Every structure is written in C-alpha cells, then in structure tokens.
C-alpha cells in the first residue's frame, strides 16, 4: 500500500470514529445547557468564594430571600457577634464592606437588603444568619457576572464541594419555605 492510500484509509477510519462519537455525543447532548451554582445546603461559608473566583470581583454574592427572613432587630447577619449598640455604626457591622442596608419597617421589624456591587461574597453575613437566624441569606453565583468557566475555580477549591452544574433554565438554588 502506498503512503497516500494508507493515509487515506487511516483518515477515513478516523473520520468514521470521530463522526460516530460526535453522533452519539449529539444524541446525548440533547439536554439543557448548564451553569455553575452553589448549593446553599452544602456551603459552609469558608470564605473562599470571595478569593478563588477567576474574576477579581467574585461572581459570588450573598442573596437574601426576604420571604424567609425574620426581620429581627438584632440580625446576626448584620451585627457583629457583640454589637455595642443595635445601630448601623461601622463598629457594629459584620459585613466588611458595609454591603447590607438595614432599614426600619415597623416596630419591631427591620429589613436587610444586600447592595450587590459592594458585596464581595465573603459569606460572613451568611454564616451569622445560618448559625443563629433563619438562614434566609446565602451565597449564590450571580450569572450576570459569572463567565461560566469550563471548570469553576471556586468549585475546585470549595471544601464542601457545594458547587456543581445546574440546568441553565433554573440557574439558582434559592432556599424556599419547605
């Protein structure tokens, strides 16, 4: 067999293989596209979300499902463990960047809203909310920021393996009332 015809034969063979594999792949790839997301039930707020994203400003932010929130005066997501007073003074706040807004609603309730551009995804508030509160605050990858890396570098570093791919049609894992 000459060099050329041998090459033709091998190429045909390879094409056949690649084609078949592609066919199988396409059939199996019928599913939804996927994006990365944090499972708030697994996350332990280790703080790596703030530091391990490929983006300088992490794609992970705290989100607040207000429906679950107790709207307490003493919010353990907002206040330091030992607040000097229950007001918005910097010395009392837990959030390192002051990203949580606290507003009076009615006696004795307050709302806590996250100012996303300021949030760095450190999860300090989440830890506070989870330990002593209702757990209505938790970390989520924000898809307006996330570049959907092929391998999420926070996911690689996450100690609880809380980050996995979820269908793009339901890109958030929000906590809900049971």
């Amino acid at each position, binding site marked *: 067999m000459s060099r050329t015809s041998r090459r033709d034969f091998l190429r045909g063979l390879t094409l056949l293989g690649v084609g078949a594999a592609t066919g199988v792949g396409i059939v199996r790839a019928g599913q939804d596209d996927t994006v990365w997301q944090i499972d708030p*039930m697994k996350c332990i707020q280790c703080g790596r979300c703030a530091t391990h994203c490929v983006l300088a400003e992490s794609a992970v932010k705290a989100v607040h499902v207000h429906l679950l929130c107790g*709207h307490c005066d003493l919010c353990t997501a907002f206040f330091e463990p030992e607040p000097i007073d229950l007001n918005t003074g910097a010395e009392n706040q837990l959030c390192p960047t002051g990203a949580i807004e606290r507003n009076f609603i009615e006696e004795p309730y307050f709302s806590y809203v996250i100012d996303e551009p300021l949030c760095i995804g450190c999860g300090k508030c989440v830890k506070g909310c989870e330990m002593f509160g209702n757990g209505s605050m938790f970390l989520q990858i924000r898809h307006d920021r996330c570049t959907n890396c092929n391998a999420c570098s926070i996911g690689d570093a996450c100690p609880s393996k809380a980050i996995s791919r979820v269908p793009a049609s339901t890109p958030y894992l929000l906590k809900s009332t049971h």
Partner: protein
Amino acid sequence: MKRIALTLLLLGLATGAAWAEERFPPPEFETGYELPDTATPPPRTLTWERIDVAVLVLALSLATWLVLRKRSRRGVAWLGVGSLIYFGFFREGCVCPVGATQNVALAIFDSSYALPFCVLMFFVLPLGFALFAGRSFCSGVCPLGAIQEVVLLRPVGLPDFLERALRTLAYVYLGLAVYFAATGAAFVICRYDPFVGFFRLSGGFNMLVLGGCFLLIGVFVGRPYCRFLCPYGVLLDLAGRLSRWRVSITPAACVQCRLCEESCPYGAIALPSPRRDARARAAASRRLILLLVLLPLLVSVFAYLGSRAGKPLSLVHPTVDLALRVAAERDLSDAKASDETVAFRKTGETIVDLNVRARDRQAAFVAGGWWLGGWIGLVIGIMLIGLFTLPVRIDYEADRGRCLSCARCFPYCPTGHDRRRTLTGGAA
C-alpha cells in the same frame, strides 16, 4: 422590645443550631410593607455559545483558505489577532477546544455527565479540519496560540534533541488531563491555563506569573505552550498527519536552495534525508524489528508503574483527599479541623461511607493508571523507534503533524516569490 430577638436567639441556641430553621417566624406586616424580590439575573452566556460555534466554523474556514489557497502570512496573522480578541479578550477564553478535551473524556467515562453540544463542537470541528487541511486552527483561530504568536519577536531555534524531549511533555500532559478528567478528579488543563488570566485581566497571582513566564519565553522560543504542553495540539498533530491537503513551503517545486531551512520558528520543517547505502538501510530495518519486539515490554513496564502510581495520583480527587484528611484529623481537636472536614461532618456521612467512596475512586485511578502508564510508555517507545528508522524525504517539507500553518516560511521560498511576482505583475 429591643432585646426580644436576643432572648429568642438564646432560645434558638438552646435547641441546637439546625439548618434553615425558622427560628424567627417571618412577620406579618401591618403597614403594608412589600417584601423586595430576590433578583435572579439570567445566565448571559447561552446564546453566545451558539454564536461562538458559528464564529469558530467561519474562522476555521477562513484560516484554511488563507493558508492553503491564498498563502497569505499577513492574512492568517491578522485572523489570529482577530480570534485572540474575540475568543480571548471578548469571550474570555472559555470554552476552548483545549479544555473541551476534558469534557469529552469525562463524558466518555461518566455517563451521567451530559456533554453540552457547543463543547462537543469545539472539540470536534478543529480536529475535523485538521484531518483535511492540517492545523489551520492553531494559526488562525486558537486564542492561546495567537497570544504567543504575537509576542514572538526574536525566534531562536532549539536544538533538535531538546525540541524532541520537550515535545514528549505534551503527550504526557494529554494523558494526565484525560486521566484526571475521566476519573472525575479535576480539569487540570483549565486549572493551569496560563493565559486565561490575561484574557480576563484578572486572576490568581501565581497563574499570572506563570502566564507571564510563558509569554516571556515566547518572545524567543516560538509558542512554547503549543509545542511542549498543549494536549489538544497532540490530537491535532496526530490528525494533521493524516491530512488530505497540507501546507507546502513552496508553491511550485522545491529547488533545494535551503533558504527556508531556518525560517520556521516552530521547528516544523523537515529536511531532506541524506542518501544511505544498502548496508545502512539493512541495519536500520534489523534495529526496527528489534525495537518493535521491545515496544510491548516497554509499554507493559510503564503500564505497571502507572497502575502503582494510581493511588498517589488519586490524591488529586477531592473525595480521596477528603478521606485522607478526615483520617488524619480524626484525633485532632475541632479547633484544628480544616474547612473540608468541617464540611464533611456537616453532611452527616459516616467516615466509613466516605472511605468506601474514596476507595472506589482510588480503584478507578489504579485501573486508569494502567492506561496512563501504557500511554507514556507507548509515546516514548514510538518516539525512539522514529529515531531509529531512516526517513526518506527528498524535499524541504513542512511536517504534517508539527506545522502550525502559520505561513511564515512561505516568503522564504524563492519559487514562491517568483510566482508572486508573476501574479502581481512584478511589483513586489
């Protein structure tokens, strides 16, 4: 009223910190306060991924046409810059065919993993083009290649032996990348992608430094990542060897003027082979037979070693890592527990169940280790065999596998100049 929450809090503490508990029932508001919605911005990438595939096809076709038909160095160079801007800086480097290799490997070995269509296309299309027209992907489309291409200012040739030795690393890296992806441990190519940090203008310090080093070396040594590490490059190399059409340095007939000999910054030009007498050829074929007999031995030795190395390599897998961490930290006080073990305890899984899972993964690593080791042995063996056979080549040729289709060598060929002169009416 002020401290009511505190009292409640202490109560909550007393019953133990359980998960997502409604310790403080959400209130009913009397003032008609409306709860704000939780914003859920949709993923922004999905339509773009389809566009990416279209751009990929377009760029591949254009690159192929520019190199094989138009023979335009300037054309591919600018196409490369365009791809660098689009795939690199604009689309921020994900997903790329290099990384897609791992997705494909994972999809083959883990049936629960659904390979996205776009990723599959990114993997298959450049290979398909390479099977027909060589590695036009490398010169005109790949953003990783393009960023190295633009920094290449003072190419120096590497001695042949060094070049060959370094090239084996790419094969090993491919083996490792498939190995770690198939076992579900990690996507190492993505984790150690040296350039993605530049594309995103951010990234870990170490990665930026690593990428900087590659670029610095790349000023002198042409495309070091492509030639000595890129796992996908290995696949393209193999596909390119079977290509139907190829880059030829000369558009007409080689006159053996040797002008192009050093023109390729990537060491891809194969020189004509010297004439050998019959004795030398007979000796060469005897050696070849001996080596072919020895090859299985080499492969088996490496395969065995690979299987034994499977266990240590399995430490890359998070489950195995966790099992060993938990085992090591069992007797330590809680204060010293790492985040990983804290998270593990929270899951409520027993140590034994974790160990069982980890051992199962380890078994996969050992099984895969046979293949990994065998692959490395095979690569070394075949490279050696290649060095013991006598090539038969008459002209200066761009090696089908190694040529990156950059078209740099074209202007060096005097016959090419001749043709261009005739084509452009002698103006150049």
